[in-house]
């Protein structure tokens, strides 16, 4: 029981964090068709901005300015780089953002070095929210989850209940019609890209204070955010939330489970045969927990490429 409750709590929080990072990407990908490879690096940028501003002015200033700075960086990238290569096609845009990821990471490393930086939450947030099965559950995890849920609600309302949201959603489906109706499409694109980057920056500033902030934080998320976007479906914020929660829960459950395919086959009396073969059959689920998101992504791509909530390819 304890295991299930703690796994659910951790999985949900981890999933919500994943959602915060990938929500922006799913908007950018869904709307502009740009597979922004550098997206996780905006998350990293947000964490380092948060770290720097926490030292200079305080945690909350960092939290406020990190999304703004990441959003500004996103604006510059869209306006001066992506727009220039747009007419070469999506593959070219993907490659450009790919080079950009290198540049962002190396510039950050240039200033902060190769080691982890100690980005800490303020002391008054460092307490146990509640005690469950004699384990103290940190308040900050709840805080991260709350920020993510708040972000989801605002994003959802913005997209479904406002004029801006209508234009953005319309531009996803019929960009030329939106332009013909007199809306400034390049501006909409720039706004979406900046907004998506800002969300990643906010996620970085919030999560960086709890998880280690270092040069590898972007690479660790780099491919996982694609899993969320692909599994959730293009441009679907709800899909991204579901996919993130699924992956978060799956990882947090599987790290504690020591079952293998051989054990499963043992139910049918084939256990010894599988154990003799070894290899894949005897790998524990806990050790291959990290592979599972990619297996999920592969299955979705092959069976339902539009994703869980997407409705077109």
């Amino acid at each position: 029981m304890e295991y299930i409750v703690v796994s659910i709590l951790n999985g949900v929080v981890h999933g919500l964090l994943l959602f915060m990072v990938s929500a922006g990407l799913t908007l950018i990908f869904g709307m502009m068709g740009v597979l922004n490879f550098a997206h996780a690096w905006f998350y990293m940028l947000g964490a380092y901005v948060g770290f720097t501003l926490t030292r200079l002015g305080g945690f909350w200033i960092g939290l406020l300015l990190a999304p703004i700075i990441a959003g500004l960086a996103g604006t510059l990238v869209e306006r001066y780089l992506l727009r220039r290569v747009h007419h070469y096609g999506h593959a070219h845009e993907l490659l450009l953002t790919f080079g950009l990821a290198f540049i962002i990471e190396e510039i950050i490393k240039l200033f902060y070095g190769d080691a982890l930086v100690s980005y800490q939450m303020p002391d008054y947030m460092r307490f146990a929210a509640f005690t469950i099965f004699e384990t103290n559950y940190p308040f900050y995890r709840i805080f991260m989850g709350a920020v993510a849920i708040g972000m989801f609600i605002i994003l959802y309302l913005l997209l479904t209940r406002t004029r801006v949201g209508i234009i953005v959603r319309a531009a996803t489906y019929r960009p030329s019609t939106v332009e013909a109706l007199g809306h400034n499409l390049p501006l909409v694109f720039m706004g979406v890209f900046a907004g998506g980057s800002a969300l990643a920056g906010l996620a970085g500033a919030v999560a960086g204070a709890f998880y280690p902030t270092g040069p590898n934080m972007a690479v660790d998320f780099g491919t996982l955010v694609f899993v969320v976007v692909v599994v959730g479906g293009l441009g679907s914020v709800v899909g991204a939330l579901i996919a993130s929660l699924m992956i978060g829960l799956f990882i947090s459950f599987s790290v504690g489970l020591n079952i293998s395919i051989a054990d499963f086959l043992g139910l049918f009396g084939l256990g010894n045969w599988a154990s003799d073969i070894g290899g894949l059959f005897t790998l524990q689920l806990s050790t291959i927990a990290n592979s599972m998101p990619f297996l999920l992504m592969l299955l979705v791509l092959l069976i339902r490429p539009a994703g869980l909530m997407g409705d077109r390819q």
Partner: protein
Amino acid sequence: MSQARDLALFVVGLAILAILPLFLSPNLMNAVIKMMIAALFALAFALAMGQAGMLSFGHAAYYGLGAFAALHLMRAVEMKLFFFPTPLVPIAGAAIGFMFGIVFGWLATQRTGVYFAMVTLALAELLFTLAPTWNSVFGGESGISTMRGASWGLSFGPDSHVYYLTLAWFVISTWCMWAFTKSPLGRLALALRDNEHRVRFLGFNTHVARTLIFAISCTFAGVAGALLAIANEATNYTIFSAQASANVVLQTFIGGAGTFFGPALGAATMTFFARVTSDLTRSWLLYQGLIFVLIMLFAPEGLGGIVSLHMRKLRAGSWRQLLLPYLLCLVVGLLLISGLVFVVESIHVVMTDAYFAKRVAANGAWVPYQFFGRTFEPLGLTTWAIPIMLLGVGSLLLPMARRVTATAWLLATQEQSPPSRDGQSPTGVRQEATA
């Protein structure tokens, strides 16, 4: 005529590569081996990308599988299970590459474009995350290692033996890939890239064709991996990393995916660049990223595209008109690059822990730092005058250099009778020196 010229170029290139080891230091010889392997890998990747338009983001999977296959084979030989000549070990890499290329390719080629890239990425990431936990095959996190066995009267101990082995496989594989582009399937690859629907209407099974082309690309990636395994005698799971897949994409596009030899040029250049600059500076990845982004922005056809543009467009003898403008571009480029390098390296020195310790020792004062054998004051006016001057003069001259080069380019290509088919503008050329 043109064929004779190509053949002559080929023979001269081969002759240079064949006698090169006589003049190279062991370190440089190793670098050339790695350059050839990288070039072969990039050519294999470009077979799928440049020819058939399949952007694979997980080609390191087949490269790595080839390396592991070769190592397992060499290990079996070392344990005297059976005999297998070392020079033929890359065949194991090719076989594994082809097998997995067929299976994985069958899955991946059901999708096109970005979705294809995502499938290949997922497959490679699966391998990357499985490999460190799968001890019996991939040797866990430390990987596996072995020794090259002697065969055919050669010990394969010294690097020069490995060099000729790599060279032979490089030449054979490159020739095979070149022949492939001329084969019916190779022509079909081009058609698939340009218009898959029409190919399907013509009655071809495009899924089978794409799978086959992908598998052939993976075969040569496997050969490249096996050659790497022979050269290094060891490998571990990091060979499957997204970073490795990314590298070959980067190198191919810097070289130019549209031409046959461009990727090899790009891979060899960037491998050499990495080798040289990684010894000099820790920020070499920053420079590599900058080069990549600049090429993507201003010369999307890559280095190979620039070279072939010159070969196609220039009138005989007219290169003299371009000499001076290119020299100007080179000067401007050098000014800008040295200004940038100065700033980056200064920041780098000032941000290190060692410098911080010095500052603490000096009660927080900005102590002078050593750099290029000279001493600079971090807050001194003269220190910052250098990069500001370099960058300022460079950017002032840049528009002029672009204008002059564009005019000269127009003059040099003016009397060319047929206008360019692809609408290539000389933009790529103008940026050659600055990129």
